[in-house]
C-alpha cells in the first residue's frame, strides 16, 4: 500500500510492499492522492482537470506526472502487490528458539516506579539469583532448541544483572565455549542500570559482549523522579557518571565491540522527551540512544493516554529535526527507533514475523522457568517449561537423546498461542502501512494494556506509525543531501 505524508515541509510517498520511498512536490502529491483514492488506477480526465483549476499546472504537465506514476506502478515501485505467503515458508522446518533473555537476577538496586518486573522480583514476592548451574542448563537448552540455526543471541537481564556479576562472568565464558563447540555464534548483550558498573566490569563487557544496553531516563529531574534508589535517594549522579565513563571506553579504538545503547523510558511526566535525548547526547556524549514509551496501568498517573498521542507525535517530529541537524553538523546521534535501512533490511519472510516471542525467543528465570519473553515472567499461564527438565531429553554428555526434542519439555499449547500470533492473521494490521516494520507490535504491551493478546493496542500502533514516518523522513533527508 502507498502511504503519503508530509513532514517538515516535505511530501513523501512510501510503498510498504516494495519499500520504495519517493519525494514529491505539490503537484505530484495531489495526483498521487487521486491514485490512492482509486487503488492505484490512473485518475480520469475529469479528476485531473480539477487539479488544473489554478493557472498552473497545465493538464499536459499533470498527465506527464500520471505517466511517471504509471511507469512506477508497472515496474513494481508503487502500489506493489503483496503476494500471500504460506506459513511454511516463514519457518524452514519449524520455529526454533534461538534467542534468550536470561534473568541473571530477580533483584534490583533501584526502585523504578514503572518497573514491569515489580522492582526485581517480577511480582513473585521473592528475590533470587540465578545459579551458574541453572544458567548453564539454560544455555544448553538454547543450543539444543536452536537446531541448525547458527546465530544465537543471549541477553543477560534482570532485575539488575551486575548484582550477580560472578555468574555473568562464568556464563559468558560458558556461552563462548559451548557455542563454539556446537558450531554456534552466540552474541551476548547485557542490560544494566549501570549503578554497579566499574572499570573491571567495563573492560569485561567491552571484551566479550557484542551489545550493552544502559538505562537512564534523560534529564536529572526526570530520571530521579522515576528511577530512585531504595529509600527514594536520587540515582542520576552515580549512574550518569558511570555511563559517561562507559561510553568513552566503549567508543575507544581499542574496544572491539562498540555497539551499545543508552535506553530511556518516557512517561506522561516528560512528553517533551526530545529534551531528554538532547540532554543525553550532550551531557553523556551518548551517540546511540533509545527512548521508549512506558506501558503503565490506567490510573497510575504516568501512563501514556490516547489524548497524549498528538503531542507525542509532534515530539517525534521535533526529535527527527534535531537528529537531522546533528548529522549535518557532523556529530550524528543514532536514535534506535528511527533506524531504517530499507536496502539491506529483512526479507519478505522475516518482515511478517515480528520479534519471535514464544516462538524463536524465550526468557529463563533464576528458577529455570521458561517464558515467551521477559515481560511475561510471573504470568504463570504463559509459563512454557523449565530448563531443569533437560535431563529428560539429554544424556550426560549434553547431547539430545535419540528421538527427543526440546519441544518435549515445552508446553505445546502455550507455544501455539504465540505461533498463531503472526501479523498477517490480524485484521487491524492488514491495512496498516507500518506492518512490515512493526511485525504486529509487542504482544506483552497488548496483553498488559488490554488484557488480551489479540486486542489492538492503539497507542502502540499510532506511535509505531509516527516513528516509521520519522525514519523515512530522515532517510530521505540523508539521501537528498547526496543527490
Amino acid at each position: 500500500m502507498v502511504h503519503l505524508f508530509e513532514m517538515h515541509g516535505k511530501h513523501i510517498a512510501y510503498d510498504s510492499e516494495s519499500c520504495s520511498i519517493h519525494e514529491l512536490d505539490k503537484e505530484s502529491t495531489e495526483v498521487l492522492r487521486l491514485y490512492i483514492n482509486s487503488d492505484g488506477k490512473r485518475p480520469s480526465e475529469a479528476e485531473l482537470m480539477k487539479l488544473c483549476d489554478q493557472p498552473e499546472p497545465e493538464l499536459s504537465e499533470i498527465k506527464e506526472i500520471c505517466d511517471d506514476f504509471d511507469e512506477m506502478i508497472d515496474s513494481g515501485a508503487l502500489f506493489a502487490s503483496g503476494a500471500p505467503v504460506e506459513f511454511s515458508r516463514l519457518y524452514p522446518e519449524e520455529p526454533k528458539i534461538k534467542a534468550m533473555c536470561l534473568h541473571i537476577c530477580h533483584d534490583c538496586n533501584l526502585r523504578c516506579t514503572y518497573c514491569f518486573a515489580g522492582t526485581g522480583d517480577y511480582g513473585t514476592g521473592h528475590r533470587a539469583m540465578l545459579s551458574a548451574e541453572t544458567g548453564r542448563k539454560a544455555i544448553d537448552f538454547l543450543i539444543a532448541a536452536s537446531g541448525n540455526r547458527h546465530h544465537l543471541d543471549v541477553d543477560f537481564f534482570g532485575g539488575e544483572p551486575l548484582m550477580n556479576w560472578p555468574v555473568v562472568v562464568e556464563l559468558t565464558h560458558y556461552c563462548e565455549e559451548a557455542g563454539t563447540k556446537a558450531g554456534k555464534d552466540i552474541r551476548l548483550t547485557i542490560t544494566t542500570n549501570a549503578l554497579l558498573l566499574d572499570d573491571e566490569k567495563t573492560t569485561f563487557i567491552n571484551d566479550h559482549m557484542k551489545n550493552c544496553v544502559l538505562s537512564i531516563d534523560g534529564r536529572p529531574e526526570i530520571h530521579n523522579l522515576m528511577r530512585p534508589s531504595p529509600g527514594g535517594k536520587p540515582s542520576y549522579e552515580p549512574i550518569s557518571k558511570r555511563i559517561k565513563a562507559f561510553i568513552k571506553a566503549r567508543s575507544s579504538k581499542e574496544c572491539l565491540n562498540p555497539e551499545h545503547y543508552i535506553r530511556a523510558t518516557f512517561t506522561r511526566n516528560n512528553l517533551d522527551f526530545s529534551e531528554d535525548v538532547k540532554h543525553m547526547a550532550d551531557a553523556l556524549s551518548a551517540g546511540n540512544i533509545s527512548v521508549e514509551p512506558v506501558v503503565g496501568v490506567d490510573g497510575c498517573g504516568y501512563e501514556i493516554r490516547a489524548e497524549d498521542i498528538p503531542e507525542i507525535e509532534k515530539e517525534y517530529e521535533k526529535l527527527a529535526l534535531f537528529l537531522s541537524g546533528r548529522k549535518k553538523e557532523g556529530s550524528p546521534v543514532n536514535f534506535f527507533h528511527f533506524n531504517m535501512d530499507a536496502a539491506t533490511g529483512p526479507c519478505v519472510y522475516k518482515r511478517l514475523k515480528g520479534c519471535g516471542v514464544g516462538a524463536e525467543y524465550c526468557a529463563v528465570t533464576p528458577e529455570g522457568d521458561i517464558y515467551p519473553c521477559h515481560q511475561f515472567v510471573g504470568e504463570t499461564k504463559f509459563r512454557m517449561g523449565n530448563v531443569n527438565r533437560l535431563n529428560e531429553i539429554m544424556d550426560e554428555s549434553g547431547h539430545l537423546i535419540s528421538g527427543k526434542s526440546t519441544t518435549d519439555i515445552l508446553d505445546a499449547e502455550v507455544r501455539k498461542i504465540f505461533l498463531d500470533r503472526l501479523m498477517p492473521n490480524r485484521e487491524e494490521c492488514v491495512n496498516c502501512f507500518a506492518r512490515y516494520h512493526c511485525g504486529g507490535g509487542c504482544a506483552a504491551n497488548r496483553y498488559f494494556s488490554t488484557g488480551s493478546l489479540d486486542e489492538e493496542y492503539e497507542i502502540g500502533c499510532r506511535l509505531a506509525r509516527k516513528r516509521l514516518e520519522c525514519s523515512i523522513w530522515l532517510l530521505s533527508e540523508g539521501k537528498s543531501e547526496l543527490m
Partner: protein
Amino acid sequence: MKHIKTIQEACVKIPKSGKACGECQTSCQSACKTSCTVANQSCENNN
C-alpha cells in the same frame, strides 16, 4: 521525472531458496536492542 524524486528504489528481498533461513535476530527490541522488531535489522544471510 520532474515532479518525483526516488529516494529508495523498490528493494524487496526475496530469498532464492523461496523460504526464510531463520537466522534473523529474534530477541526483544526493548530489552536487548538487537532488533526493532524488524526495521533496523540487516539480513544475516549472505546467500
